[in-house]
């Protein structure tokens, strides 16, 4: 029986125990893939730390931290095939990196540059979605388009938080997916808090995963701080989306139970609404030492290699920061040029008037800093 066919209210699916011991069937992955997952998780954590620090130093705008959510991001991204698509919310910096969005782009976006949103052509990824749950119907639509075109080799994974499951768009997106049997994987990062509002205040459902039942497809709760379990359930969901068995529905909703160690964004102060004790309790489930312990116990990693990985990720993040910070400040023409395929006359006129003013008064008349 596929793990997806469990009752969504059963104990959540887990492979690695909190101390890194394998308690379930470990997915059959190459050693180098496992090390790659570990490296990406470490990279995401380090990137996050540096990004928060850049914000504190005034070198970046408001930023949504991801620490604690690496297993969900990296584990699920590793479960995708090359042609699959990722539809993120605004916190999937780690998953996006695995899917081909350079760190430098993520930095540029949060540094206020539109260029951060221009993903490389070969990366199958949607832009960051800031409004809550609004990307979910897009994911259904994208998957639906693929199905209508007769493709059966692409799955579409869409990320959102626990708060998003309260929004109308969540219900509409999942309902369409059920009705039209689209190749979707709905991945809920249940990190326990929608800013200050706890998961218990979003729904009286026992689990979020069971909501899928209402739309006629499987929902599964997985330990979102166990990268191997996340990989396994996502992999099965991706395979089912493309090639369902007789009578199976393509879509799946995965509820990955996890914790946001930091603030919702750098504009938020979690000490107002949650106890440090709770944070500490969840830190015991930290996905990174968990995978590290397992890989060491299997003889796949040793201290030397871990040190080498640490050095290489620090260099990679430092390079991305250098690249982002040495990107020239955007100029006002960028505001105008991509609003329409062809610049309407009235907008062209607005642009010309503004350019004339810039010329007369100089840029410093417009820039606050």
């Amino acid at each position, binding site marked *: 029986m596929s793990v997806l066919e469990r009752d969504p209210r059963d104990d959540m699916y887990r492979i690695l125990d909190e101390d890194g011991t394998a308690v379930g069937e470990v997915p059959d992955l190459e050693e180098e893939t496992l090390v790659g997952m570990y490296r990406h998780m470490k990279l995401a954590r380090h990137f996050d730390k540096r990004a928060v620090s850049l914000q504190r130093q005034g070198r970046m*705008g*408001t930023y949504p931290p991801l620490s604690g959510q690496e297993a969900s991001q990296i584990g699920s991204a590793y479960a995708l095939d090359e042609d699959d698509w990722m539809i993120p919310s*605004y916190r999937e910096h780690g998953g996006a990196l695995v899917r081909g969005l350079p760190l430098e782009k993520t930095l540029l*976006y*949060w*540094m*206020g*540059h*539109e260029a*951060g949103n221009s993903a490389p052509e070969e990366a199958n990824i949607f832009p*960051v979605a*800031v*409004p*809550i749950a*609004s990307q979910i119907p897009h994911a259904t639509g994208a998957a639906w388009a693929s199905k209508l075109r007769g493709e059966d080799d692409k799955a579409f994974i869409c990320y959102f938080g626990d*708060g*998003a499951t*309260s*929004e*109308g*768009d969540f219900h509409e997106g999942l309902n369409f997916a059920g009705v039209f049997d689209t190749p979707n994987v709905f991945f809920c990062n249940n990190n326990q808090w*929608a*800013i*200050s*509002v706890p998961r218990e*205040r*979003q*729904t009286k459902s026992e689990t979020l995963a069971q909501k899928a039942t209402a739309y006629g497809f499987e929902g599964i709760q997985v330990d979102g701080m166990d990268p191997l379990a996340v990989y396994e359930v996502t992999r099965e969901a991706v395979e089912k989306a493309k090639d369902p068995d007789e009578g199976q529905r393509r879509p799946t909703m995965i509820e990955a139970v996890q914790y946001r160690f930091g603030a919702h*964004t750098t*504009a*938020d102060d979690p000490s*107002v*609404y949650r106890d440090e004790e709770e944070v500490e309790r969840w830190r015991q489930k930290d996905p990174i030492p968990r995978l590290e312990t397992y890989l060491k116990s299997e003889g796949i990693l040793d201290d030397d290699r871990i040190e080498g990985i640490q050095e290489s990720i620090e260099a990679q993040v430092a390079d991305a920061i250098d690249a982002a910070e040495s990107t020239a*400040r*955007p100029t*006002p023409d*960028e*505001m*105008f040029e991509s*609003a329409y395929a062809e610049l*309407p006359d*009235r*907008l062209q006129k*607005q*642009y010309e008037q*503004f350019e004339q*003013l810039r010329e*007369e*008064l100089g840029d410093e*008349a*417009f*820039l*606050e800093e």
Partner: protein
Amino acid sequence: MASERETQNLTLVQAVRDGLYTEMQRDEEVIVLGQDVGKNGGVFRATEGLWEEFGEQRVIDTPLAESGIIGTSVGMAAMGMRPVPEIQFSGFMYPGFDQIISHMARMRTRTRGRYTLPMTLRAPYGGGIRAPESHSESKEAFYVHEAGLKVVVPSTPYDAKGLLSASIRDPDPVVFLEPKLIYRAFREQVPEGEYTIELGEAKTRREGEDVAVFTWGAMARRTLEAAENLAEDGIECEVVDLRTLSPLDEGAILEAFKKCGRAAVVHEAPRTGGLAGEITSIIQEEALAYQEAPVTRITGFDVPYPLYALEDYYLPNEARIEAGIREAVEFP
């Protein structure tokens, strides 16, 4: 009278909080609901301390659902409560837009006056604080365009409290947009206790005879600064802060315009379909004979609000406001 009361030196966001506190104390039908308004005190601290003071039956953290927040407020208000729903940023009002347009604005007219909705929908709005995408829009025109709603945008702490109190007491639904650029930009003496400022009345912030400048929200401060700069060159602006955008104070607009014969409008919303066009039309219809120059518009551009690296270029600032006003004054 306000001048006889004890006052406090408050920022605009503190004055909003004081207005909510005062009205909740005065009338137990007033409740506050939304995302993060309770224990967290609102993402901008506009509801700070209210949860502790009034309890979770009256300061309610809701699930994350704008249509739900606004739609349930419609039901509560129809039953005679005075809900004050908060949407965290005006850029997130759109999932609740159907409730605003189809129900909040129309309940009175559809029921021939049997039900009315004494609710005040609050949201921080506007740009200039280096916020992420979807956090900086100014779309007041959407709500002004919808009959049945009142739309209020304060530009000072004193006004914020008085207008909010008036909005909460108003029998009709009000969209109350709070310019977050000036949430904490300055302080002002705000009376303790109750007072209201009548909705629909503009306020002349500066007297002058050369050109009437109409504005509101965060742009009011920038316009006043620009007016002071222009005064050094002998151009005297009459600056009118509209404060309520629906209904518009046509009397104040025409009076100021007739006095000057020239006008400019400053708003941060995009130009096309923005309120500057409406104000210009009022002038054309009612005071054409007084007109000595085209009305100039100093506005945001017709482009999506940019990420923050470009927002200084997008938002009107003193330089652009001065240039636009000069154009009106120097014509022909």
